[in-house]
Structures are given as structure tokens and as C-alpha cells.
């Protein structure tokens, strides 16, 4: 589906090289291009690693700032050798882990604090339900059950199937061999299917525990 076909790989690599050259030439304006080129992927993954959309924006911004601070310390050769997308997503993963750790140290918010929207895909859900019941229902349930996967499986599935990374990049972000990444993806998908099957659609949201 979203997996990169052979045709666009060359294009993407070319774009990636241009971007690396821009970063070497002028870090700040190159970084503006980097954000434009990668914000959608980074934010899409951040959304699946966060419980609230505002947390996802914070997380994505934090990841880009960490990337910028790292780039400032790199010489031209090191920048030129970066594989930007998996590098950015690895930073995002680490930032998400730090955020989760910090959140665990803080006392839980009061019960009324979490808006109900967090369990759905967005504010427009209610209006689009009529038009696309089936597709939307599945997407909305998926968003919820994805959160129940173990971290490595969730990240593997999101990287491979939400943002369409090739398995080799998934492995790079997870920091594991390709074979292990493949098995995380496959186990994650089967786990998703099991979760979707075992839970009736209207019991799903009520039964989900807020982490």
C-alpha cells in the first residue's frame, strides 16, 4: 500500500541528498526545508505515540529541536552521511520515551482532565460518521487498539503501515536486525486483528483504560 515502490525510491534519495547539502550549506534555512519535508511523517508517528493531539505536537516539536541541536554539533561529513528519516524518527522515539518517563513521575491529572476526543481520530469524527461509517469506524478503533500494543510492536506497525517506511528503515529506528523488525510488524498486525475481533465496537472505547 504505502510501502515505497521501486520508482519513487530514487526520487526520494535525490531529495534527501539535496536536503543534506542544504543543511551543510546553511543550517537554519536547510532545517526549514527538513521540517517541511519530514513534518508530516514525524507528526503522524508522534500522534500514535501520544495520547493527546496537543502532546503529539509538543513531541514532534521537541524531536525536531533535538535534531537541530544535534546537527549544530555535527561536521559537514557527518551531516552528509545521515539517513534523515530514520534518524529523525529515532530521535522522536527517544523523545517519546523521555516524555513517558517524565509523565510517569508526575502525579496523574484529575479524572476530568482528559478530553473525550482523545479516543477518536479528531474533532470532525461526528460529522463524517454518516458518510464513511465502516472505514471510519475501523480507523477510529485502530487508533485506540494501536495504543494497546507493546511499544516495539506499535512503533513497528506505525512506521511500516501508517507512514510506509521500508522494513530496513523500521529496523534502523527500532535498533534491531531486519528480521526482528519484520516479526514486530507481523506480530503487531496479528495482535491488532485479535484485539479488533475480540472487542465489540461499542464496548471498545468504554473498556479501554486511559494510560
Amino acid at each position, binding site marked *: *500500500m*504505502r510501502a515505497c515502490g521501486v520508482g519513487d525510491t530514487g526520487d526520494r534519495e535525490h531529495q534527501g541528498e539535496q536536503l543534506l547539502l542544504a543543511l551543510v550549506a546553511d*543550517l*537554519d*534555512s536547510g*532545517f*526549514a526545508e527538513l*521540517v*517541511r519535508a519530514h*513534518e*508530516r511523517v514525524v*507528526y*503522524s508517528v508522534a*500522534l*500514535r505515540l501520544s495520547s493527546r*493531539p496537543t502532546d*503529539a*505536537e*509538543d513531541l*514532534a*516539536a521537541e524531536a*525536531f*529541536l533535538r535534531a*537541530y*541541536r544535534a546537527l*549544530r554539533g555535527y561536521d559537514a561529513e557527518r551531516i552528509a552521511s545521515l539517513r534523515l528519516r530514520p534518524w529523525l524518527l529515532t530521535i522522536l522515539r527517544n523523545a517519546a520515551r523521555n516524555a513517558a518517563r517524565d509523565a510517569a513521575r508526575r502525579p496523574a491529572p484529575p479524572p476530568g482532565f482528559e478530553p473525550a476526543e482523545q479516543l477518536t*481520530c479528531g474533532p470532525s469524527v461526528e460529522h463524517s460518521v454518516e458518510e464513511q461509517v*465502516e*472505514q471510519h*469506524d*475501523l*480507523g477510529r478503533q*485502530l*487508533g485506540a487498539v*494501536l495504543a494497546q500494543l507493546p511499544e516495539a510492536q506499535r512503533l513497528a*506497525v*506505525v512506521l511500516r*503501515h*501508517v*507512514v*510506509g517506511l521500508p522494513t530496513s528503515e523500521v529496523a534502523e529506528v527500532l535498533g534491531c536486525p531486519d528480521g526482528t523488525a519484520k516479526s514486530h510488524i507481523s506480530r503487531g*498486525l*496479528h495482535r*491488532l*486483528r485479535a484485539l*479488533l*475481533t475480540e472487542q*465489540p*465496537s461499542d464496548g471498545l472505547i468504554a473498556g479501554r483504560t486511559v494510560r
Partner: protein
Amino acid sequence: MMGNDLDSITGALADLTAPAAPGLADRIFGSWLAAPSRLGAAFVAFTGAGVQFVRSAESVRGDAGAFAEAYRDRFGRPLRPADRAPAGLLGALRGTSAASLQLDLRGLSDFERDVLTATSRIPAGQTRPYGWVAREAGRPRAVRAVGTVLARNPVPLLVPCHRVVRADGLLGDYMFGSAHKEQLLRAEQGNVDEVAALARQGVHFVGSDTTGVVCFPTCPHARRITLAHRHGFRTVGAALVSGYRPCRYCRPAAEVIPAHPDAGSDR
């Protein structure tokens, strides 16, 4: 329930791709511009949360690149040129009004923020010693630390660190040079010469024998005491012994006045 085969699950997963978050780049980049200020041209950097960094062009020899590099070193954030100035900035740089201006003081320690907040309460044309700021910031013994914080003030002019002076009546250092400190205070109608003359006589506080109130010599209540009723003191303690009480407006002493009389109204 629909779509429980793996293909429809992967299809639905692909639809979870989000559009880019609007305004994400605004949360990553700082914006910069050059604007006229009371010290000539100034470079200013700001985020969506407010103004972060101000330096006179003179202090970086007019080099916008040097300003940008100092910003990046300090804040670890990329910069891009601003389309327009945030609300209230231009007036605040000219010294006409700072009412609507937002400052972005994230990344500073609580103490640094408290020092800047206390400093921002000093009215135009008046001065307070470093020890006064330390006390108002809740750390009365951290006098030298206040000097260190103000020497690194990220937003001079907007937080008027030029109004913080030495306890002995000398104006003391300023990040853009003490000549500019004096120039700014004179432009605010500060009684710079009078304060210096009093200090030479060992007078650092002024009281009125009609009200029985003792003030800093730059306090408007001190400046309007007529010569016949004006009494000078070396210390607040000496004034207290003579039956004076510290002014509630300029708060020259800690003993009788709580450190945070109105923490809610910073400006």
C-alpha cells in the same frame, strides 16, 4: 464488524497518516527582526510565546549573523526572519509602553525568572539596588547572583535591568556599558545627579518628617519632599531608629514588608 482481514487493517492504518500539524514549524523556529530602540537599532528574537532575546546592534557591531549565532548558542533553536513584530514590541523598545508585550522566559531557572519579574516592577526613572531585587525575588542573600542573572538578561530594555544599581549609589555595570545605563536613566527623568550628590554625603535613603516615611531617593514620594522636611539616612535601620517607617511604594526594607506583597500583578 468489518475489515478484520490483515489487508483491510493495513489499508486502514495507511489512512491514519495525519496532515502536518498546522503551526508545527512556528513551535520549532524562532523569528528575528531588527527594530529601533532607545539604544539605537536592536536585534530581537521571539517565538509564539513571546520575546526571547534582545541585543543592541551596537553590542554585536551591527552584525545580524553574530546576533543569530548568540541566539542559537543560548536557545538551541533555529532562526528565520520575521514577517512582523509581535504586539507591543516596538513601543516597548522605544520605552513608550510595555503593557501588551509577552516575554518567552522558558528555559530560565525559577530564580532567574523571579529576578527578571522583580526587576520589571521597577518604574521608569527609578532605581533599586541589587539587594532589593534579591529580596523581592525571595532570596535576600543572593545579591551577587542577581548581578549575574541581570548581566545575562535575555531581554534588556524590556526587563529594565538598567534600573538596578549598586547599594553605594554608583550606577554600576550594564551589559551595554555603564554610559548607556546613565543615558537611559536620564532619558526616563531619573534624578541621577541628585542621587550621586546624596551618595557622596553618605545618604542612601530620604525621609520626610511630616509623613514619617523613608524612601529610596529615586522614589517619587522622596523627590517631592521639600528641603525643609527632608532628612537623609545612611541606612534604613537608622531611619527606623529615628521613628520612620519604610515607604510601602518603593519598599526600601525587608524587616516590615513581606517579600511578595502582590505576586499576582507583575507589571
